[in-house]
């Protein structure tokens, strides 16, 4: 880190400390209860549905109906402890939060803001380790996304998300990294600080590029999507120029349309060829193989099956069809908790990416809408905390976390309902995955920590 930055940091910290001392009494000392309750509510619903979704196959595979559930429950307990711990560390302060455990007095000067750079570097190193041939790196199904830690495996990409959020938040608070194009309008007496390209856009781009490259090598498409989404949300909130934003949106839209048009064309050609082959008396199975080969690669095929779920129900669109059968079977009121039939039938990943399908089948449209409402409430409350955050850094961190959370929920539900092409993004609090759940709860802890320092004027 340059001397420049260091200088700035010390100054900011001294300043913040001084302010802390001054405003200590005005701050709330407790977390935001509404956010806390919504979090715990989602956690509990998530665990219940996980049990419902997993017990049959757990019994079939492990001869223990509770196998998956118990695993997740253990991590949920650890995650709640992690969440509680996370609330004790201040987001943007040199002082420890009141009510901190005595034994942790040493961390009184610890804050997420101070840890931001370290978190980013460490997480990127961890992420890099996954693609090295080291024994610590664990590959599953050909994807190198995991690291082995004595008793468990975890995905460094989860940690990278926090690292990225903290680092971006901190960088966006640096006025030298002004993200406005052209000259900034000067208020009378204000000194013009023109942000150069190397100082503003480039550092964000480099960090993002490094992460995306590693994720591409893993490969981990879904994590890359979320990272990009976090970056966009944070840069937008942090003041990225509207024109850049607009240009980006236009570019993305054009790209998406181009891809869809291209894929539609290839699909139509492949389909025509297959029909021709079958008409010519070729073996149906062989024709289908040719069809699949023509559509080729993984992501390409995913988009085809999104656009045409009926085209190849035993191949590419198998999962989405099974998911739609599950959701559709639920109807208005669902088949009842624990009564899902698709989960024991052909629905894949019934306790992972497609757990929401099981939820919809069991609790119906009413239950699904209720759950989306709860998710929305949590997100809105999170944004509310961001709007009342103590400072820009806290606000950006909360925006980053809640934005990531909202994107995950939207993408997961969007995928299982076939509004979006399949990505492999899990549903927070619901999908099976112990370390991921723990990290999600830890992130909620950061938001709660921020909520403790909200600027609220007490009434009465």
């Amino acid at each position, binding site marked *: 880190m340059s001397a420049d930055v260091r200088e700035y940091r010390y100054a900011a910290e001294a300043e913040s400390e001084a302010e802390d001392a001054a405003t200590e009494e005005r701050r709330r000392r407790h977390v935001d209860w509404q956010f806390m309750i919504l979090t715990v509510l989602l956690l509990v619903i998530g665990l219940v549905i996980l049990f419902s979704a997993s017990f049959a196959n757990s019994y079939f595979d492990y001869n223990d109906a509770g196998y998956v559930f118990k695993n997740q429950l253990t991590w949920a307990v650890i995650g709640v402890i992690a969440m509680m711990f996370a609330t004790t560390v201040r987001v943007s302060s040199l002082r420890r939060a009141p009510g901190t455990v005595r034994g942790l007095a040493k961390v009184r000067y610890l804050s997420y803001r101070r840890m931001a750079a370290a978190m980013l570097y460490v997480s990127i190193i961890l992420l890099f380790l996954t693609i090295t041939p080291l024994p610590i790196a664990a590959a599953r199904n050909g994807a190198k996304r995991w690291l082995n830690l004595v008793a468990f495996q975890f995905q460094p990409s989860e940690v990278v998300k926090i690292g990225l959020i903290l680092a971006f938040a901190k960088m966006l608070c640096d006025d030298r990294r002004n993200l406005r194009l052209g000259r900034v309008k000067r208020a009378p007496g204000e000194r013009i600080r023109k942000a150069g390209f190397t100082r503003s856009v480039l550092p964000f781009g480099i960090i993002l590029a490094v992460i995306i490259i590693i994720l591409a090598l893993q490969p981990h498409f879904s994590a890359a999507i979320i990272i990009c989404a976090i970056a966009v949300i944070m840069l937008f909130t942090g003041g990225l120029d509207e024109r850049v934003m607009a240009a980006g949106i236009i570019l993305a839209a054009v790209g998406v349309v181009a891809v869809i048009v291209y894929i539609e064309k290839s699909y139509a050609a492949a389909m025509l060829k297959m029909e021709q082959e079958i008409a010519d008396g070729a073996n149906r199975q062989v024709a289908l193989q040719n069809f699949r080969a023509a559509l080729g690669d993984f992501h390409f095929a995913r988009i085809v099956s999104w656009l045409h779920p009926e085209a190849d129900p035993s191949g590419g669109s198998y999962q989405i069809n099974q998911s739609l059968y599950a959701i559709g079977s639920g109807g208005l009121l669902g088949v009842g908790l624990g009564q899902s*039939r698709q989960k024991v039938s052909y629905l894949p990943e019934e306790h992972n990416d497609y757990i929401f399908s099981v939820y919809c089948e069991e609790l119906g449209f009413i239950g*699904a*809408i209720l759950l989306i409402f709860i998710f929305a409430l949590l997100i809105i409350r999170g944004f509310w905390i961001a709007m009342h955050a103590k400072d820009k850094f806290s606000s950006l961190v909360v925006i980053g976390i809640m934005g990531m959370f909202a994107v995950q929920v939207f993408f997961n539900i969007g995928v299982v309902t076939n509004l979006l092409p399949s990505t492999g993004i899990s549903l927070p609090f619901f999908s099976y995955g112990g370390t991921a759940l723990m990290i999600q709860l830890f992130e909620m802890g950061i938001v709660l920590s921020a909520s403790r320092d909200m600027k609220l004027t007490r009434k009465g």
Partner: protein
Amino acid sequence: MSKRAERRANNEMNKSMLRRILLIMCAFCMLFTLLGAGLFHIQITRHEELQAKAIDIQTRDTTITASRGTIYDCNGEILAQSASVETVFIDPYELRSYKENAELIASGLSGILTVDYGKLYEMTQKTGSRYQTVKRKIEAEEAALVRTFIKENSVKSIHLEADTKRYYPHGSLAAQVIGFVGTDNTGLGGIEASYDTELTGVNGRVIRLKNGSGTEMLFNDYENYFDSADGRDITLTIDATIQRYVEKHLWQAVVDLQVKSGAACIAIDPRNGEIKALASYGATGGYNLNDPWGLPEDLLAELALVADDPATEVNEQANAKSDAQYAQWRNKALSDTYEPGSVFKTITLAIALEEGLVNESSTFYCGGTINNIPGRDIPLHCHKATGHGLQTLSEAVQNSCNIAFAEIGLRIGAEKFYKYVDAFGFRAKTGIDVSGEAGSIWWSDESFMNAKDKSSLASASFGQTFNITPIQMITGFAATINGGILYTPHLVKEITDNSTGLVTPVRPESVRQVVSEQTSERVRQMLENVVAIGSGKNAAVPGYRIGGKTGTSTKTSKEAATGEKEYIVSFCGAAPMDDPRLVILLLLDNPTRQAGVEIYGSTMAAPVVGNIFADVLPYLGIAPQLTEEQQREQNVSVPKLVGHTVTDAEKALRSARLEYTIVGDGGTVTAQLPAANATVSPSTKIIIYAGEEPPRNQSVTVPDLTGKTYAKAKTMLESSGLFIRSTGVPPNLTGAIVSVQSVAAGADAEFGSVIEVILVDNTVEGVF
């Protein structure tokens, strides 16, 4: 503004940032609303469509095979019945998924089920398949062994499936009538095929949830039953006891008379058309319903010699084998046509009587030959070359005179004759309720009714040069003696639905009154005379009023083709003639035995029918009305003499109309030959041992009695230390000779055993 203040300002949130946060929040709210809309579309709009598809893939449809109905005889004796068995199959896909040991499974199953190991191992490797049948229709014990094997080795890929197997408790009894089923339990012949729908019932279904790997689910009670409706039971008109008698005597005749091309016998109740027995043998005999594809061993040995012609691709051996199988399944009584010969004269007689063209006082002259038949180039010969002379109608029937019947036929005329042929149903199928009935072969109306050519009419009058099936013959014959009513012959008496308890009786279907009751009465009288004093003597049973008509026909088409003369001999009889309760038609196709009696219906077919009547009429509860003379001629049962004094024994034997010799000089009988309760002819000389022992375990060679008179046969047997029992015509009848003996000539018999002989009046000339 100081530098610090400026930096501080950058750490504060500004309005623009708050605005952007709100904007993002709104964006997410909209996206979430979109999700809700998507869910509404899937869960509400498309609910039914998607649910139907889901249920379709979630469920496993299991068929509950409806139990196939039972077939009973008219007295409730079971003729065909289904029992639960199981079929073992492997799911090679599961075998691979669970990584099970293919060698272990193959060797285990091959040990239990005696299936080839190599074949089983091959099945286990077909991992693309989910169903490989190991063995079908195994019994409960074998299934239990398989279950134990599955449990002990915790194998998941071996499955047992419920199935049913058809059992025929009586094996070959009424085989052509009952028919059999294939591996899929569909009827392949006889009643099993013709009433397949009724017997099969409706299969049920169980729909159970399954999981993704195809196994049935553990946690869900979603189950849907569609009840199966068991097949209906069928009660036949067949009486198993009568059938057994018929088959016993028919098969005996086939063996004794060296019948080469099969034989058939139908017993029908003339009062309603119910078929009480129907037996048929192909050239190789009958077959066992429990193994319908099995062939007799000597035939198999013969087939093994059939060489495949290397020049052609045809598998001669397999073809010959399947031909033999079809031949043994063929129901000769329904599927084969023949020239009925003189039996058909009954019909001509009934027509002429009904039309008033002849009466009991009509006379016919037979000089052996006539030439004056319009359209016939060659003279018509009677079977008696010297001619029958002047005969009354009844005598013409008794003599079975062709010339007299040709004349009667000409009197009737072609139009009227055909009218009656149709009325008797000879030109249409009888409509019997079992498949396989053949049609008859007649001249066209134009050629038959040609005024200038009456040769067809002449030969038709005595039953030649047209072809009908045996079932048509007996159906028409029954109509002439039952009061003139033509009944549709049928095999099914009633159909019982077990689930509802509903019994549907099959009502006798009277097609029409063909001739009047009076005509029928007169026909009965004349037919009774045929048996009493005419060509049908050999069918007589003492004490019963039996009537009938003999028939012998050359197979004209065969003769034309090969030049060899082959005969079909037949007899159609009814009893008791005052109120006929049973009509029997028996025909032997190509009897070849040259020794003993001549090859005629009267000498070969009539005695068999007589024997059947002798067994069946008492079974039907009809007591014989014996004259004193007949009583004296009855065979007697040897009384128990051992332990009695010789004097008592002598007295007992005298009263039993038996003669005796005494061996030894003791006062008490120590042994006797034949043993007590043996049936022998009257006047048989019983050997009483008083103080001495008869020779033990001594066998004697049975002499050839065929063609000998009764007296001669008796002497021959007694000189060998054997005893005689005769059936058939009375021993003292002139011309009676031994036709068949119970132990073949040259075979060994124990000293003192009783040999049964069938006496046949060989002077009775057959008829063409």
